[in-house]
């Protein structure tokens, strides 16, 4: 396959940045998208040019590092996958592929396609945890009876890998699917009840302070989420927040 890549290049956080065209030839349809970028980077290095910086780690759809906005969609045109699971057979020979970083005020570009997603970490620190005595007397979680449906929904919420595709896809750069999932995974379980009120209030407060936008329920986040996190989690977070606000 011969392709024309249009890639966002930005030297550092203070650089203005611009789209740069890169033709690439002999791309195997069986390559993953990241392998294709690896090939491009080898060519750039051989020519003495700076390689394109992009985040990647596990390359098996678990870590959520590979944050690329490809042809106008987070993680490209396929569904329920991360960029590392996207294969070049998805594209046509001769196609132009536009590759950009996540765009959000709360996710500033560090270099090229790499963005700073520590805003998510700070939201997690604000309340995305439960306090458990781990001094040797820890109670086995399985000793607490939990309704099957609640356990399933909590587990589904917990599959969020924090990749940020929800923020990137949302026209408002809202992080509510991420925060909704992180609130839900504990709100549905008895272990999460002790800190439930503070958790949702603190996590939403931190989310707002980070500069994410408001959710307008377009549903783009749910469609683009590689783990299929449902909008139900945002509704649950809304209920938890309103209930916690009334208690507070």
């Amino acid at each position, binding site marked *: 396959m011969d392709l024309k890549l*249009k890639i*966002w290049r930005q030297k550092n956080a203070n650089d203005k940045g611009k*789209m740069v065209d890169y033709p690439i030839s002999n791309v195997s349809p069986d390559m993953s998208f990241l392998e294709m970028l690896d090939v491009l980077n080898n060519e750039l290095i051989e020519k003495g040019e700076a390689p394109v910086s992009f985040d990647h780690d596990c390359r098996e759809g678990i870590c959520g590092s590979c944050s690329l*906005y490809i*042809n*106008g*969609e987070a993680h490209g*045109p396929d569904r329920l996958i991360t960029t590392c699971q996207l294969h070049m057979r998805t594209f046509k020979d001769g196609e132009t592929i*536009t590759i*950009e970083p996540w*765009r*959000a*005020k*709360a996710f500033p570009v560090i270099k090229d396609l790499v963005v700073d997603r520590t805003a998510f970490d700070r939201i997690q620190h604000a309340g995305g945890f439960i306090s458990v005595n781990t001094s040797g007397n820890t109670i086995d979680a399985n000793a607490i009876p939990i309704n099957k449906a609640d356990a399933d929904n909590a587990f589904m919420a917990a599959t969020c890998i924090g990749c940020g595709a929800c923020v990137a*896809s949302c*026209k*408002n*750069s*809202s992080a*509510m699917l991420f925060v909704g999932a992180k609130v839900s995974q504990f709100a549905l379980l008895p272990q999460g009840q002790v800190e439930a009120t503070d958790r949702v209030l603190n996590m*939403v*407060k931190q*989310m*707002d302070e980070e*500069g*994410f*936008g*408001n*959710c*307008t*329920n*377009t*549903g*783009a986040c749910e*469609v*683009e989420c590689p783990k299929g996190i449902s*909008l*139900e989690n*945002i*509704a*649950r*977070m*809304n*209920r938890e*927040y*309103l209930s916690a*606000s*009334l208690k*507070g």
Partner: protein
Amino acid sequence: MSGILNSSIGRKFAMALSALFLMVFLLQHFSINILSVLAPETFNVVSHFMGTFWVIQYLLQPVLIIGVIFHFVMGFVLEIRNNKARQISYAKNNGGANSTWMSRNMIWSGLSILAFICLHFYDFWFPEINTKFIVGDMSGLIDPNNAESGYRYYEELQHKFVDAWRVVLYVISFVFLALHLLHGFNSAFQSVGANNKYTKGLKGFSKIYAIGIPLGFVFIALFHFFNQAH
């Protein structure tokens, strides 16, 4: 509790409550307007009641106006805040791949509805306020000195739909209203946290409401346009 309106979720909750209130009002408005087609005499009687009963005039009408203003102001506030959350736009964005046109353009359909409300107030509300509170005629009669002349409401309604350009403007506005409701109805329920086993049924009902009510208003406008001499 005090800081709830300063939070993103609190603002969305308030926006949704005002939307639900306005949707109930819209249903009530349509129910009365359709009487102008089905039973003009009843339309006159109900219109006079709505225009003179103190609870509606001095209690519910101000609440409605506040609700409308709040919904528009909050809509603009949210739009401005959301635009600030993404300062650099994508070079290529395929929004149609993951969301509906209606959901992405609520501000534009909303602005169209705001423009329509201005025209609607110019057509009906301001003349009504002038007649009742400046001229001082609370009789609701065509000729205030002649009780036999009958109520003026149906005649005034028909008079407004003489001009084709006004009918066209009304029809276009109702199309934008339908587009706004097609997203707004479900969105309001999601914002107040109502996403559950009833959501599927609610989505079906929302389509009936979002298309049915504006279509009904279009029918009323066209009915009065075609049922009078031009």
